[in-house]
């Protein structure tokens, strides 16, 4: 993997440059908002990347917790499979919400299960905890970008910095707060089992997110609020630029996460080696 790093770096740089060009120059100018709208190409992909990373954190945390007891681990596998199957079947039985394709829902269900088992396979034992730390840290960075670009976009276009009823922006803010709390918990922990405590908090956070979403959704239906970011359809050419930027961001996120992962792995190996050395001492120092 180390050999691939420079190549990956160059590819990422190329992609980011290309994406930047596309976003700032090549993409068509938006009819009503003008050039300010171009910040959208940073705002949305950052959000998708952050959500993906936080989802990985959730999966890694659950993995870490269930792995402590083999019986619970097996049950969890079956539950995840069950949920995936239920979503796939449900996608074709229950009419999906407006604007969402049935196949998209089914694919999401399969993707969730696939990610769970991939994480299980690729990150055994302690590695799941390292994955959790990495995804939380990088996720917070991308989430911060979302929260900064959001108001920067909103102010010139809609005249306000923030709308408390804006469901996406507010949900993102809560998610950001939860993960800042997560990182602080890890930093301030004086326990020997920091990984377990952090994983527990991540589970609570994940349970909270749908509730946040629904609470704001209903609040909005009772108190109509301006919608930042607009809704509705999007020009296919713009969608293309959006996806290019997302791919570039994903590469970048992967690069940064991988570096951080390696750093954490090495750090823990050093600690383990020092611990082993301590064990071998015949006298205490």
């Amino acid at each position, binding site marked *: 993997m180390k050999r691939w790093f420079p190549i990956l770096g160059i590819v990422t740089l190329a992609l980011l440059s290309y994406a930047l060009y596309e976003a700032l120059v090549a993409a068509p100018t938006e009819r009503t908002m003008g050039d300010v709208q171009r910040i959208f190409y940073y705002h949305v992909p950052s959000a998708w990347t952050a959500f993906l990373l936080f989802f990985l954190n959730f999966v890694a945390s659950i993995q870490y917790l269930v792995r402590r007891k083999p019986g619970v681990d097996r049950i969890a596998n079956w539950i995840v499979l069950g949920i995936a199957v239920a979503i796939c079947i449900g996608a074709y039985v229950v009419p999906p919400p407006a604007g969402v394709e049935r196949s998209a829902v089914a694919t999401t269900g399969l993707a969730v299960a696939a990610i769970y088992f991939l994480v299980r396979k690729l990150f055994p034992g302690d590695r799941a905890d390292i994955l959790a730390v990495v995804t939380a840290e990088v996720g917070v960075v991308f989430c911060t970008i979302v929260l900064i670009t959001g108001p920067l976009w909103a102010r010139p276009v809609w005249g306000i910095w923030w709308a408390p009823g804006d469901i996406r922006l507010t949900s993102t803010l809560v998610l950001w707060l939860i993960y800042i709390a997560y990182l602080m918990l890890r930093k301030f922990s004086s326990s020997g089992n920091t990984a377990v405590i952090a994983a527990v908090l991540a589970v609570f956070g994940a349970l909270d997110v749908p509730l946040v979403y629904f*609470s704001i959704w209903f609040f909005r239906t009772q108190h109509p609020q301006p919608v930042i970011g607009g809704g509705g359809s999007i020009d296919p050419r713009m969608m293309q630029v959006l996806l290019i930027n997302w791919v570039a961001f994903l590469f970048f996120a992967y690069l940064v996460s991988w570096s951080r992962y390696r750093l954490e792995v090495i750090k823990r190996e050093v600690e383990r080696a020092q611990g082993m050395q301590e064990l071998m001492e015949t006298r205490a120092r």
Partner: protein
Amino acid sequence: MSGVTRATLIKDLRLEWRSKDAINSMLFFALLVVVVFSFSFDPIAEESRRIAGGLIWVAFLFASVVALNETWARELRNQVLDAYRVSPAPANSLFVAKALGNFIFVCVLEALMAPLFIVFYNLRALGPAYQLLIVAPLGTWALVVNGTFFAALSIRTRAREIMLPLLLFPISIPAILGMVSATTAILSGENSARFYIVLLAVYDVVFTIACLALFETVLHAE
């Protein structure tokens, strides 16, 4: 309620009654909060009924954080928690007892602060006032169940007292939105609080289950 839960709850209530430490300081703190709020947000204004819901619950939130920080203080003093961990008593019994104790305590605080708010803000419910009696316990349990759990998490950290609100506030946001919106809806009578009551109930169920499922893990973490 299991024997351990009952015994723990009774012991906590008895100790609280005997020392009256927390009660006295909490009561005075609650009064101060109401007074400060009444100076900061003009209670005579027309809008007072709209913002009262938010003010009341923010005041309860801060008052309950001060109470929640004390949840495990007695158990930490002489490492009594070790005695609990060594015994065969189930971890959840301890959790339920502590959560119920906190619940009772915060409800007492609310019962004392609410009349003060009514007086200072000349509040009158234009909607169905009985619903407030449903919203209050649901909202309080939402704060207390997670608060008791995160207080236990905070024990294993260095900055224990600031860690609790740091962890509690983000997670409580849907519940706070629910409590405030429901109270505002009832006081102003402008819309139905029903959805928010359902939201609070769902929140309570989800997180009570989560706390019961994970407390043993947290208690026995070193």
